[in-house]
């Protein structure tokens, strides 16, 4: 079935360092969404990317959608302890249902 690969599975950084997680699909996506799940919480929507080559920013977070609409990335600049959690990409191939990547668990050393 359709799936989206996300790497890395884990990332531990010092506070203030940058962080990036990547998602890749073998087939073209309709759109891709990003979610953050805090420990013990539920996924919370961050953003949706729809257009080829799209770049969106939310404060220290930068989201990119590849030109071929097969890959995406989330970059956090100068991480803070509040950024701790698991970041999921979620792919859509036009059927409205979302397929989630494996997630990247971010831990931060203060």
């Amino acid at each position, binding site marked *: 079935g359709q799936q989206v690969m996300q790497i890395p599975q884990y990332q531990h950084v010092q506070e203030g360092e940058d962080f990036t997680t990547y998602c890749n699909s073998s087939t073209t996506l309709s759109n891709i969404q990003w979610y953050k799940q805090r420990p013990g919480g*539920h996924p919370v929507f961050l953003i949706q990317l729809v257009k080829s080559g799209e770049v969106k920013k939310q404060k220290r977070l930068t989201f990119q959608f590849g030109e071929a609409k097969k890959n995406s990335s989330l970059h956090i600049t100068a991480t803070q302890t509040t950024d701790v959690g698991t970041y*999921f990409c979620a792919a859509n191939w036009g059927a409205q249902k979302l397929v989630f990547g494996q997630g990247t668990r971010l831990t931060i050393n203060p």
Partner: protein
Amino acid sequence: SAVISQKPSRDICQRGTSLTIQCQVDSQVTMMFWYRQQPGQSLTLIATANQGSEATYESGFVIDKFPISRPNLTFSTLTVSNMSPEDSSIYLCSGETGNYGYTFGSGTRLTVV
């Protein structure tokens, strides 16, 4: 964006019994979905809950095991039937809210003993 109230938040159940999880949305949503998440793992889609018709199940999930109802655009239930310890997991409902992505309920942590 919509707010989804999910209950129960957790339960411990005997094997062979069934549990029904409810999700109530504070506004109408076109699409609702049910996911399962093992602790520390990703979310696996169980089914799409269709309003007024049978749910659409993903590979590996069947209606007899996970019957779903969606009588209107703000409410859905998932039943986990004839439970075994392998059904222990977190179950999440979600609703598609347009530009606000998918909103999730707070989850039901199920333990089967």
